[in-house]
């Protein structure tokens, strides 16, 4: 078989997501859990309080994004029915092909911002994003190493769009909490978009306002294939300007780790099928053009569809919650939401969208969204003034430069090793696989945490609230605390001997902890822990070390050797690399995990071996002061070696 590259393997691994449980199991399990939870809720209130706390932070943070999402989703995925007395209505019975053709034209004649079903925020750059990253803020979105992809399969007829949506809440809004919450924030939204013919140049500005007309969020992005410049502003004393330089698409250099599939790897796309998928994605699977209505001299297609919504659904999972009626499990809080959209027949532009609870009537109206759209085919110079930053406040600039990302990362590591005079241990016969310095990442995070600067928000009570919401956002804290205080430097060495992948991990600490205390973090509550004196040769001299052998007891599992490949380490226990565990088929079994500890010149080393004999290890200590060329060369070799395996280290995301 042709050798598979790492990228190919990664792609194929993603396809393993197709593995799903049987629908029968899902039905049964859901039913079981439903019964179990309904009859076993004694401590419901306590945790509910916790959830509320969590939702409070998230909700408030995500509110602007989710309102926009909701606005866009509702607008794009259903039908518009506009009851207007005196209007002329003609029922339609279009064929599937006729209907698809109209849908296709709607895709062509409305901006992505209006139509994109999965856009989670006003700043979304990659409109295909469907996971939670889509609702992250602009910096996280902009911190991409490659230029984002724009455009859909159907494509757009125009180069410039201006959109405005205004949301009105209807009589029934209080009957569906989930929609009530999403529609209560930032009811007004404006966006400007421009792209050139091949979508290599994209400009976008989006602004949201509160019901009182105050600025909620502002985002401006001017992007070319090489770089992007974005501005983010929340009404405070300063705005953030982020310049991102993307790495080149193809250069063949070590720096270029973008995957360009070769001809054999390319997937033939069935265009018709893709278009249909895109239509379904935007309009929903049961969308139907039901009628034409003529009002004030203009004729509109009226499109209708419905979906099921759990009206008590927590706000933060609303994004994933829209389920076609046919596929929805029964639940007391599940309500059918009927959506009507009106699309102007001549222009195929979306003009109005209404959502109703259960059935169409003014009493059941949840929301009404009115769209204003202007579009044209213009050159950028004609609309360039729309894409200037609009506020005369201080601008703080940050740069994400991925053009020489690998080189920069190398330099960061070398600088850190130099400044801290970290003493590395190299191993005869093994080559450096990885080297990470935690401080580099903490510095990067700290340089971009302007969201936690009170001055980023307006003065006064409203700004206090916005700031509080952001500081409560839990993921920020959890992203930093887990690894902040860990090893200074983590190194890995390896060599391939036949089919055996031998490797050694060395974590370098400089802590006030004793060896025993430090090793507690590695051995993780073993059933038994033995400590033995050993020694290693370091720079030709025997250095005293300790070997910590943690033993874990477990009952035998199976004789199936697939579980434990014979002779191979296999355990989830431990915190460094997989510890040793022997195949065990009968009775009570034990597994062991060994770590070595030694100290040198004030540094603490925790070492773990994998398929490697401890007696074979001969260490040499190196510092940048004494062995600069050696270390630089090893790092250079490491990057060269792993360039086909590992993508450049990502910038640490903010959230």
């Amino acid at each position, binding site marked *: 078989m042709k050798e*598979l590259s*790492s990228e190919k*393997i*990664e792609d194929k*691994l993603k396809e*393993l*997501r197709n593995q*799903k*449980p*049987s629908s029968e*199991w*899902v039905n049964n*399990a859901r039913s079981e*859990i439903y019964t179990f939870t309904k009859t076993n*809720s004694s401590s419901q209130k306590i*945790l509910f309080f*916790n*959830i509320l*706390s*969590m939702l409070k932070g998230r909700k408030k943070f995500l509110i602007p994004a989710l309102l926009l999402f909701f606005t866009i989703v509702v607008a794009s995925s259903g039908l518009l029915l506009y009851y207007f007395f005196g209007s002329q209505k003609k029922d339609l019975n279009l064929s599937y092909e006729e209907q698809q053709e109209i849908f296709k034209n709607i895709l062509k004649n409305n901006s992505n911002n209006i139509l994109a079903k999965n856009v989670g925020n006003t700043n979304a750059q990659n409109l295909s994003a469907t*996971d939670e990253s889509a609702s992250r803020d602009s910096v996280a979105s902009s911190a991409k190493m490659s230029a984002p992809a724009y455009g859909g399969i159907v494509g757009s007829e125009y180069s410039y769009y201006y959109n405005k949506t205004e949301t009105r809440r209807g009589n029934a809004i209080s009957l569906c909490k989930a929609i009530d919450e999403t529609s209560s924030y930032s009811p007004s939204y404006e966006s400007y978009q421009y792209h050139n013919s091949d979508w290599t140049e994209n400009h976008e500005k989006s602004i949201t306002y509160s019901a009182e007309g105050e600025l909620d969020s502002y985002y401006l992005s001017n992007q070319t294939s090489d770089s992007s410049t974005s501005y983010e502003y929340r009404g405070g004393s300063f705005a953030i300007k982020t310049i991102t330089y993307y790495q080149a698409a193809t250069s063949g250099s070590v720096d270029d780790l973008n995957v360009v599939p070769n001809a054999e790897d390319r997937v033939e796309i069935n265009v018709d099928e893709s278009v249909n998928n895109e239509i379904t994605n935007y309009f929903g699977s049961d969308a139907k053009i039901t009628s034409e209505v003529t009002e004030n001299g203009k004729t509109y297609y009226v499109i209708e569809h419905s979906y099921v919504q*759990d009206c008590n*659904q*927590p706000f933060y*999972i609303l994004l994933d919650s829209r389920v076609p009626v046919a596929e929805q499990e029964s*639940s007391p809080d599940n309500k059918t939401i009927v959506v009507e959209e009106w699309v102007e027949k001549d222009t195929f532009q979306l003009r109005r969208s209404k959502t109703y609870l259960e059935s169409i009537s003014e009493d059941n109206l949840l929301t009404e969204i009115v769209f204003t759209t202007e579009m044209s085919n213009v050159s950028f110079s004609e609309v360039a003034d729309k894409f200037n930053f609009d506020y005369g406040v201080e601008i703080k600039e940050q740069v994400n430069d991925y053009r020489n990302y690998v080189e920069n990362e190398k330099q960061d590591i070398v600088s850190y090793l130099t400044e801290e005079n970290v003493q590395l241990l190299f191993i005869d016969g093994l080559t450096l*696989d*990885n080297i990470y310095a*935690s401080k580099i*990442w903490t510095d990067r995070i700290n340089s971009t945490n302007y969201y936690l600067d009170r001055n980023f928000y307006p003065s006064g009570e409203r700004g206090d609230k916005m700031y509080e919401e952001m500081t409560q956002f*839990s993921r920020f804290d*959890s992203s930093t605390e*887990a*690894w902040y205080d*860990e*090893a200074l430097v*983590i190194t*890995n060495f390896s060599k*391939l001997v036949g*089919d055996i*992948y031998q*490797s050694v991990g060395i*974590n370098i600490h400089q802590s006030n902890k004793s060896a025993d205390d430090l090793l507690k973090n590695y051995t*993780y509550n073993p059933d038994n822990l033995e400590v033995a004196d050993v020694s290693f040769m370091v720079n030709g001299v025997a250095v005293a070390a300790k070997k910590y052998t943690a033993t874990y007891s*477990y009952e035998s599992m*199976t004789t199936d050797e*697939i*579980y434990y490949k014979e002779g*191979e*380490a*296999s*355990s*989830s*226990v431990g*915190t*460094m*690399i997989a510890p040793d565990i022997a195949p065990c088929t009968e009775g009570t079994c034990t597994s062991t995990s060994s770590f070595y500890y030694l100290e040198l010149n004030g540094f603490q080393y925790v070492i773990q071996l994998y398929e490697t004999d401890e007696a074979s290890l001969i260490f040499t200590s190196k510092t940048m002061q004494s062995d600069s060329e050696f270390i630089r060369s090893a790092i250079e070799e490491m990057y060269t070696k792993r360039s086909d*395996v590992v993508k450049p280290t990502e910038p*640490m*995301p903010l959230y």
Partner: protein
Amino acid sequence: MDADEFITAFDNYHESIYRFVYYRLNQNKQIAEDLTSDIFLKAWEKRKKFNPAKSSLKTWLYTIARNSVIDIYRKKKKEINIEDINSDLIFSEEVNENNNLMNFLKAKLKLLNESEQELIILHYIEELEIKEVAVIIGKNYSATKVAINRALNKLKILVNK
């Protein structure tokens, strides 16, 4: 967390949790389904311990799933017999090349040790971010990143050897 919110969590995450368990437990559909049910029932019972300040609901559920898998590895469960452990894989051979490749990859995935398997599953199959994986497996970010790289490297060697 009230019952309705929990049901919603089930709706949103059962496929991910199932997949994690499926690939960690020798790709056996029956066992994976049974354990996934257990995991959600366990999560409901432990809901008081969920601290949203420490992890998201998703990573919390993955953590419970991970611990449940470890429990199985460490403590033989009577209801799982040898036959149950047989992989679905041998029954799902397909003739087309892509499926052969997928099955080949799934077989190789099983040759990784447990830690490596879960890293590959969480990061490459479930597409969790490194920091999310770090929370689930209780390691720091850098160590997790290193371990993920190692696991992919090893998988590549296994696939191509």
